[in-house]
């Protein structure tokens, strides 16, 4: 069977898979960004209890494998009364995991904002919250965006693991197609190319645009 016939035959399945992967990715990104901001800020708190919680969270999620976390959320949480369907379990686990890595980026970026900015905000008698929201975070954003680009590609790759708990996304479709056609090179090769396209023509340009956009907002030309 020529590749074109294979593709014509299986394209709908791949496209539904791609769609689910995109959904998973977007939901995970939202969760990861929220978690990263909260944990990154908590990590910088003066209260040792708050810092401790963030520290444990970050070390726990960075110290164990994403693969284990996905399985844990899906198989173990139901015993404690939280039953999630595979889709929700999948994006939750991926989002929480990437959020832990993101928290470190947030922390690093905030720390690299010059100290004078804190002092200036203090001199203008801004509240702590105002200072963070209006002075520090907007300046930390352009610093942390480039590493976030890499992290989001890791996130996209991480969503592939959701196939192992039965989310019908791109990897799952590739496995199905492989076991029904035995054309492994075509089945997995196509999905590899699709993932590459999602990363290369989806996430990378989006992050470039975001970097330019924030640079312009900050009054710096990129």
């Amino acid at each position: 069977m020529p590749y074109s016939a294979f593709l014509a035959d299986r394209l709908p399945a791949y496209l539904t898979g791609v769609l689910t992967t995109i959904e998973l990715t977007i939901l995970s990104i939202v969760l990861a960004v929220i978690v990263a901001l909260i944990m990154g800020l908590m990590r910088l708190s003066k209260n040792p209890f708050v810092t401790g919680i963030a520290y444990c969270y970050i070390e726990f999620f960075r110290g164990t494998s994403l693969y284990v976390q996905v399985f844990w959320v899906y198989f173990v949480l139901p015993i404690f009364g939280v039953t999630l369907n595979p889709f929700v379990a999948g994006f939750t686990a991926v989002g929480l995991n990437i959020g832990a890595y993101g928290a470190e980026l947030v922390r690093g970026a905030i720390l690299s904002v010059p100290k004078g900015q804190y002092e200036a905000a203090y001199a203008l008698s801004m509240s702590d919250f105002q200072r963070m929201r209006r002075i520090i975070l907007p300046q930390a954003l352009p610093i942390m965006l480039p590493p976030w680009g890499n992290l989001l590609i890791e996130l996209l790759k991480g969503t592939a693991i959701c196939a192992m708990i039965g989310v019908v996304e791109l990897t799952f479709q590739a496995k199905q197609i492989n076991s029904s056609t035995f054309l492994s090179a075509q089945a997995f090769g196509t999905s590899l190319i699709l993932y590459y396209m999602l990363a290369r023509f989806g996430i990378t340009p989006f992050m470039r645009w975001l970097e330019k956009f924030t640079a312009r907002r900050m009054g710096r030309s990129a």
Partner: protein
Amino acid sequence: MNRYWDWGFFFEIMPRILQGAVNTIMAALGGYALAVIGGLLVALLLFALKPSAQIVESSATLRMKRILTFIIKEIIEFIRSTPLLIQVFFIFYVGPQFGITLSPWTAGLIAISLHYTAYLSEVFRGGLEAVPKGQWEASISLSLSPMHTFFRIITPQAIIPSIGGLGNYLIGIFKDTPMLSAIALAEMMFMANAIGGEHYRYTEPYTMVGLIFLIISLPMAGFIRAFERFVRRRMGLA
């Protein structure tokens, strides 16, 4: 027997999980060793393909070098931005289609070391490029041979900025080995899945796997930081 947690069961399954842990560590270290060699070779290749500062090259050679560099970088980018899980499946299942049957160990090691070769080549490349150009010029003015310059002057200085990245990817490869359970390599996660399937209890096996990951990766991170400090001090830096 507690509905949530059963210590008896926990200790009963421990030997099997630990047996899997040995395989996990072996797969991680084996894959890492291959990836270090591969990454170093790719980085050296990319380095050799840079336009030479000393010899005037013909435009044909330069174009050839540019094309090769482009291809290598594109392949690295491809490997880095596609999921390891599918790469593992690809290598495991594509062989038989063409009459080559790979064992889970062979396929798994190839896949994981290829994936991390792409990452480590970037680490090594970054390290090599971080060495100031003046070091090359100084070596030329001291009429050291290119080999001597490279191995005695450049490489030792390139290692220091690489240690952090190398260490991170060692932990990374370790945490990625559960992907190999998908092709039935009997590592920790595979054992946990098997136990879960047999007893229909997932809490203890998965939690134990998570704990073992924590127990290994947290000290490893500390150890890498200490090692980096040690090397810096040995090199007379900070």
